């Protein structure tokens, strides 16, 4: 486990210098995706390269040729689906605070909001609470500008200063949260791609079986 710790001089190290970034998981996730892509690419190459060679001399008539074509099409569709879905893992998603409100990240939000103290300590009681300070500062600023009473305006100014300090103190946690959301999206894409790969395998198997039936009869 890695936790922020004092250095040799007893000074507390800066937050970002000690907390491991969740982004460190991204290369491993993408490496897994590349392996899957390579595997399905090899299957596709074998089908395209080997299928027609096997079929030569065993296909007699238009009906057989049509059957072989359909079977290859089904098998290659399976390969294409798998490659298309897995390649989405390699696309860099855009992660902003607005992304945290999307259904794709509901699981992450629920996990954090179940035990916010483990993630934010006393800094926030939920994801929304952590992300509230910028909006609060904007609203304070607007209220300050619309205040005509100088004394109340001065109070708004002090509140704005507090909100800005809160923004600064929440910023490292926000960066960590966005990094976690970024990784979570990639992990979810990889998980979904695996299910699509299963479907792709089924299509490849069905296409291959059809191909063997047609060419075997020939």
């Amino acid at each position: 486990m890695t936790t922020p710790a004092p250095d040799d001089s007893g000074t507390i190290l800066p937050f970002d210098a000690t907390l491991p970034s969740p982004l460190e998981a991204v290369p491993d996730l993408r490496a897994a995706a590349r392996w899957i892509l390579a595997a399905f690419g090899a299957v596709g190459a074998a089908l395209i390269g080997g299928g027609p060679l096997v079929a030569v001399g065993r296909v007699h008539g238009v009906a057989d040729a049509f059957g072989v074509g359909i079977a290859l099409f089904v098998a290659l569709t399976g390969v294409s689906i798998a490659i298309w879905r897995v390649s989405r893992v390699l696309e860099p998603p855009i992660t902003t605070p607005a992304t945290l409100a999307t259904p794709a990240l509901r699981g992450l939000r629920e996990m954090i909001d179940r035990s916010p103290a483990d993630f934010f300590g006393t800094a926030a009681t939920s994801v929304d609470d952590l992300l509230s300070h910028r909006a609060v500062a904007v609203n304070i600023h607007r209220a300050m500008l619309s205040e005509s009473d100088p004394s109340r305006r001065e109070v708004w100014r002090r509140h704005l200063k507090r909100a800005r300090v809160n923004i600064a103190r929440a910023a490292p946690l926000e960066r960590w949260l966005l990094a976690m959301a970024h990784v979570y999206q990639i992990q979810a894409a990889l998980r979904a791609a695996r299910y699509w790969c299963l479907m792709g395998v089924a299509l490849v198997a069905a296409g291959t079986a059809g191909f063997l039936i047609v060419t075997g009869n020939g």
Partner: protein
Amino acid sequence: MDDKPQINAVRQLENGDLERFNGEAWEPYLDIEHDPGDWPLGLARGDDRP
């Protein structure tokens, strides 16, 4: 007509205290405490490997 404020709306009380609307109720707007012990735990790359 629904007069519910927007989330993160702010208001100043007579005594000068600030409140924030959290989506359900008004609550005092508090300062974040700066405690290094609050930082989340985590595993560094390589911690899970021998």
